[in-house]
């Protein structure tokens, strides 16, 4: 597996990284096998994601996935997000994630799904 330029870019310059003033929802998700952690701050308006900010520690894959998702999911409903699925994450990351890294790739996505449960 090679690191695509886009992953390196998002990893070095993560988008929407930081706190959200007056977040409606905060979700914390950890990956106990590697110690990665992501915290998602979001606001949902009319059942759609209005804004996402996030913070976390993790590898290039989990960082890039959180960064890319924070742009991609704005405007999505829960159904949209579910439809996007883990397959969508893998595709978004360049389509080449080995089985050992799937947990890294989907960490932020799992947290995002919980946004709608709150």
């Amino acid at each position, binding site marked *: 597996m*090679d690191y695509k330029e886009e992953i390196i870019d998002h*990893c070095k310059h993560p988008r929407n990284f930081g706190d959200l003033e007056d977040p409606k929802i905060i979700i914390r998700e950890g990956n106990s096998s*590697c110690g990665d*952690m992501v915290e998602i701050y979001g606001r949902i308006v009319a059942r759609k994601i209005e804004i996402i900010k996030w913070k976390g520690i993790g*590898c290039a*894959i989990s960082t890039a996935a959180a960064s890319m998702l924070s742009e991609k999911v704005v405007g999505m409903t829960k159904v949209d997000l579910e439809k996007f699925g883990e397959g969508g994450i893998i595709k978004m990351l360049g389509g080449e994630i080995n089985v050992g890294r799937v947990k890294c790739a989907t960490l932020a996505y799992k947290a995002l799904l919980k946004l709608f449960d709150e």
Partner: protein
Amino acid sequence: MTRCHSDTIKKTMFDVNKIRGDFKILKRKVNGHDLVFLDSAASSQKPRQVINTVVDFWENHNANVHRGVHTLSVEATTMMDEARKKIARFINARPEETIFVRNATEGINLVAYSWGRKNLKKGDVIIASLLEHHSDLVPWQEMCRETGATLKIIDVDGNGQLKIDPPSRKASEGRSELREEDGVVCGPLSEILDENCKLIAVTAVSNVLGTLVQISEVRDQRSEKAPGALLLVDGCQLVPHMPTDVKKMGVDFLVFSGHKMLGPSGVGVLYGRKEILEKMDPFLFGGDMISEVKAGHSTWAELPHKFEAGTPDFAGAVMLGAAVDYLSEIGMENVRDHEKELIAYGLEKMKKLEEEGLVKVYGPLNAEERAGVLTFNVTGVHAHDAAQVLDKYGIAVRSGQHCGAPIVEFCGTSAMCRASFYIYNTKEEIDCLIEKIREVPKVFRIDN
């Protein structure tokens, strides 16, 4: 025979190239490169002799054990019994003290459920250490929660060594080093050990930092301050790598897993001192562990069968016996000598990279205090990413928390890379690792 002479004989017996020839997998290519397998602490590779044993078993001797009077069943039973005897001899235990379990985790759970549930109560103390693998920590957390006993943790010093501190040294200093870690009292053994302690669960070798723990010091303190406390040792990184003698160590329980010592996954061993095992109730109930069964009640079989309910992994046990034969043929002192040479070499090379600011090394920096486990991070790169880049060059290292989250966190990081060595590894492979570590920052455009 002079010592020098015997050393020469030992050395000539250990031929790493000959050993490598027994491991076909070491000839395979990974991503176009020769495989450099540095992940034996997670699971070792298996030599042809061990694989052939299980093929021979399935093809020529297979039948269920302890059940039939027919020839195949008798052969299978005899082979499993022989394997048990070999494994017992390997750690200087008696066969009836050598219980087959699925893995070390199951062995520890067996002790927790069978001994812990019956013997622990509020006011009692269980002591584990900050170096423990999750398998030797979580069962004790749960047992304390269930019985009301208290968990205390032996702390670690800056070199990754357990703070055992003989009472004599403690007395001369006179100040307390106790602290709280996640609501649990954490400190030197000398400060947390008293007669309330009912069991000390400690690893002989840290799977994260490679630290060799002075079990004899733990044992001596136990004998002095809490003679009633049992000593359970996690031998997962000990038994595959150096001579092990449960009697000399003076342990009450020792657990280890087959797959880390050239054997199969799915088989591990719990050693328990006979007098203790005899007083313990079974952990699992069913076939094979009974003496007499009536409609309304049953009595238990003798050791070791009392703790081996159901059809065991008999083929796995036979294969583990073959692994023990293979290791015994090499000699466990030779195994340790070889790995000590590798870790000394690896530490020296890695320290140079550290001086350049390229990596951070974790754990004891002295081969005398360390097993063949080299733990590091590449500066500015997450462990998973470093491992992924190394994999591109055919180098297999483990990355993450190594099922030892508390000690990883104690070292001030969230994840680490770990290169671990075994009988088939070479200095050339370490050179390859060191060379390719230099490529890692380039991928992430980090200037060191």
